């Protein structure tokens, strides 16, 4: 099975701290995504990457950056954490294939719950 691993399940940080959320997938997927999940808002896309060193802004990129130096690893960075970034962060990956039977299905990690005090 595809496995997407988020290194930290729970983090507590202080306002202004730099925060790194790490995500690793083991199935050689091209695409990786960071979503933020908030009650009543569902999942909102922060950034995604379709290749090493490539990144694209999602719907809510402000206050975040990402890094993809290796195909299997996609990091989300909060340069200066703020209380409104307290949330659940979900990483996902997918492969690109013209065969629709399996293509574009996102596989999610278990999530990283971040609290910013």
């Amino acid at each position: 099975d595809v496995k997407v691993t988020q290194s930290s399940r729970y983090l507590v940080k202080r306002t202004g701290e730099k925060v790194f959320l790490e995500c690793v997938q083991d199935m050689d997927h091209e695409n990786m995504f960071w979503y933020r999940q908030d009650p009543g808002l569902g999942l909102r896309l922060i950034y995604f990457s379709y290749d090493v060193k490539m990144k694209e802004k999602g719907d809510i990129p402000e206050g975040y950056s990402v890094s993809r130096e290796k195909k299997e690893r996609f990091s989300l960075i909060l340069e200066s954490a703020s209380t409104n970034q307290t949330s659940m962060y979900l990483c996902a990956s997918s492969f690109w294939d013209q065969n629709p039977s399996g293509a574009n299905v996102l596989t999610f990690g278990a999530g990283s719950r971040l609290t910013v005090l």
Partner: protein
Amino acid sequence: AQSVTQPDIHITVSEGASLELRCNYSYGATPYLFWYVQSPGQGLQLLLKYFSGDTLVQGIKGFEAEFKRSQSSFNLRKPSVHWSDAAEYFCAVGSSPFSGGYNKLIFGAGTRLAVHP
């Protein structure tokens, strides 16, 4: 604008009763539709997907969904709910794999299902 609406925030059903979770979407191109489930403390797991062909699709855990283009709906159903189905359910829409591009999914806000014994 592309969007997904799940009108019901919370639903409570009795074990053994039938279930229907509603999903309406707004999408300019041919949609690629998904239902995901999130158990407490877990990431999202794919229940089923629709991209073409038969409008009634079967998924895991006894779930099915019907695509109705005229109503822009993709409702999820299960004939008999089990206590283990208590979770949060997310509908999502993305671009068809035939349209090219990267499949950025747009998620609904989710429906939380409670199951009474």
